[in-house]
């Protein structure tokens, strides 16, 4: 057990290091952006005096490394600074939006992960059958279309024609949980269609990969049913690669939703991110990037740890 704990601690430390490097890259990247922030914000009223005053107010007259250290120091204390566009605390602004994004991702994950794993197991069980082929074609087609296209198709059929779900996912904190689930259904379905193929195919491939193992032959010769062999003997040993793919897709559900949020006018972090880029609200962009990066790193870390835990040799040492 201590071995696993040290391993987790190591990964965690490595994750923090990565996050630090990422913060540096974000800061430098934004530093390299052309154009002057103050002029963009002040617009018509940008006289040399106002620009200079504004720069001083924002601390932009200080050298970059001083600003970076100040920014990082603030971030470490949970203070992301203030939005340039509306003067609100960024942590407050992002908090609500990020919660919304996580909510949407969670709903999509709850639908897509069990669906993908079940389909993958079934495809492995009936491999090369009509079912296997058609499920492959369907999932591959859905992943091949751009997200906005899938989104508009769903809107057309499920919102406009059938009028089952709302086409605009307008949610706020005061809505009941059930109502919120109902309103995010279309973006969640869009995301599901986008991520299910990858996870399902990995599940199928990992299981089929194991079917040549001697212990699967043994299970056959023990007279076990096909479904028991697949679910009980192959699946537990195929978990590590499946977990990795699932987690990468979960990360995508959080950080890759920008387009889907825009299409459904969903008040998530992605939407805020796009708005802030347009408004040149640099502190918000920086903060969003950092949160995306942290999510990615954290989820990959989880995948690592779960893969380790799925290996009996590590979980039950000699």
């Amino acid at each position: 057990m201590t071995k696993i704990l040290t391993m987790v601690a190591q990964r965690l430390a490595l994750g923090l290091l990565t996050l630090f490097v990422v913060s540096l890259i974000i800061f430098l990247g934004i530093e390299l952006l052309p154009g002057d922030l103050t002029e963009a914000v002040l617009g018509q009223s940008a006289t040399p005096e106002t620009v200079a005053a504004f720069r001083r107010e924002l601390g932009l007259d200080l050298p970059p490394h001083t600003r970076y250290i100040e920014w990082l120091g603030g971030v470490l204390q949970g203070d992301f600074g203030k939005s340039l566009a509306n003067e609100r605390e960024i942590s407050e602004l992002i908090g609500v939006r990020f919660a919304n994004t996580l909510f949407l991702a969670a709903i999509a994950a709850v639908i897509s992960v069990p669906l993908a794993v079940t389909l993958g197991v079934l495809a492995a069980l009936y491999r090369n059958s009509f079912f296997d082929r058609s499920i492959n074609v369907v999932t591959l087609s859905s992943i091949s279309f751009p997200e906005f296209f899938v989104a508009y198709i769903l809107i057309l059929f499920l919102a406009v024609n059938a009028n089952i779900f709302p086409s605009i996912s307008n949610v706020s904190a005061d809505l009941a949980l059930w109502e919120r689930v109902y309103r995010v259904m279309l973006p969640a379905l869009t995301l599901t269609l986008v991520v299910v193929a990858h996870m399902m195919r990995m599940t199928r491939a990992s299981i089929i990969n194991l079917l040549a193992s001697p212990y699967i032959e043994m299970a056959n010769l023990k007279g076990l049913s096909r479904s028991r062999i697949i679910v009980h003997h192959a699946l537990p040993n195929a978990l590590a690669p499946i977990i990795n793919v699932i987690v990468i897709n979960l990360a995508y559900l959080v950080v890759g939703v920008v387009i889907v949020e825009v299409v459904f006018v969903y008040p998530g972090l992605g939407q805020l991110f796009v708005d802030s880029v347009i408004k040149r609200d640099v502190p918000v962009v920086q903060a969003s990037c950092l949160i995306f990066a942290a999510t990615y790193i954290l989820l990959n870390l989880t995948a690592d740890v779960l893969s380790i835990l799925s290996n009996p040799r590590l979980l039950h040492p000699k």
Partner: protein
Amino acid sequence: MSTDGGKHEIGEVLLEMRGLRIEGQSDEQWHEIVNGIDLTLRRGEVLGLIGESGAGKSTIGIASMGFARPGCRISGGTIVFDGIDMTAASEETKREIRGSRIAYVAQSAAASFNPAHKLIDQYSETPVQHGILKAAEAEQDAKDLYRRLQLPDPDNIGYRYPHQVSGGQLQRAMTAMAMSCKPDLIIFDEPTTALDVTTQIEVLAAIKDVVRQSNTAAIYITHDLAVVAQMADRIMVLRYGDLIEEGDAREMIANPKEDYTRQLLAVRTYKKEDTAAAPSERPLLDIQDVSAAYGKTLLVLQDIDLKVERGRTVAIVGESGSGKSTLARAITGLLPPLKGKVLFDGEELPASYKARTRDQLRHLQMIYQMPDTALNPRQKVRDVIGRPLSFYLGMDSQAREKRILELLDMIELPADFADRYPGELSGGQKQRICIARALAANPEVIICDEVTSALDQLVAEEILKLLQRLQDDLGVTYLFITHDLATVKAISDEIVVMLQGRIVAQGEKQEILTPPHHEYTELLLSSVPEMDPDWLDGVLEKRKAAQ
């Protein structure tokens, strides 16, 4: 008809195969790998199937369960098990019979147990899934069987995962698993081949005991005639999917009728003449006080002192994990020793191969266990053998071509083999190419690491003879690493016995092989199966008496 005098009754016919044909697929075509075999097995009888690889013995064994491995198919004949035609039965019927009435024990227990589940759960699975027992009853049975098979701590060992128990214990746990539904027939597919001799004898004894007590019929598949002699009532000798000879076990071992059977029996009778060498002032290879470790802590070699005289064959023998291959790695500098030194012809060699000169490297060559992985499948034989010629000796293409042909001649292969790829060669031929590659460097010492272990017995014997001839002609020195005492007896001048990273005995062959032995040498020697069908019972009694 009982041959071992135990409680062992042979009854009516249980399994009958008539004209069994099985095909295997390669290159999109079906080839017959079993050509019309007739087999009859009665209740309580143990039938030995023996032959070299490719004989079809495993394929026939699992065909009795109506099962063909992926890429194989049963193409003709009938298999009738207790009145049920397994070739015509539905999948559902076959599934009900598998595990409950016919059980299988595989060669590698380590690979055939599912790593994700506890031993006892895998044991209980068969009776529970077949609806024969409840989980709790099955677990109780498992503990009883573990006890009968003399597994340590039988009440708790089942709650371990496969990687947590040793190879010999796993093999016994697998035998227990096969017995879980009290089957009428068990197929043992080389159950002891992957084990060390001292472990093999325990597993053999355990298997023989439970088979005898429960009066189960069994098909015992092996390539080792001495092993099958201990287990079987009747023996069928197979070759390339054909039956060569069939008969009562004792009868066949005493009076084999066919040449092929005689060859199999005669194998391992090859023996080098004894020669004594006077220890010289300056041995060719002098290993002084060498210790080596993987990582910083895991000490696998301790204080090894070894002198090898020119032109001699020194056999290093020990079981898996004894450090014999590590010793080879330490000598060649692949694993620089922690302490001690290696002297070649009186000159100290740098610890790591990276620091050695090309000439120092040239003097020490290696031949490996697996010719398949030791040869680059994308290189022609010409390139494989030609590389050391240009690398060490700087030959131009003309000289190289001439030398390649000489070397092929030395290893008794025709000249046109130079244009072949390793994939087109048999296992024995590949090993010959590896020998030629080692010889190409004109080495003083060749380290042979289990060079015959992956080969069939008849082929292995040819390789040993070739190595001996090359030594007689060229005076090359061999360091011969093996776990197989028969090989040691055949080829060595001197023997070094290793146990847990230390040398426990070393000396001239005669001196080591004649009693009194070191305790461990004695254990090793007495564990090697002999053709005598009473050998196993005899050894076990002797050991029991000694305790």
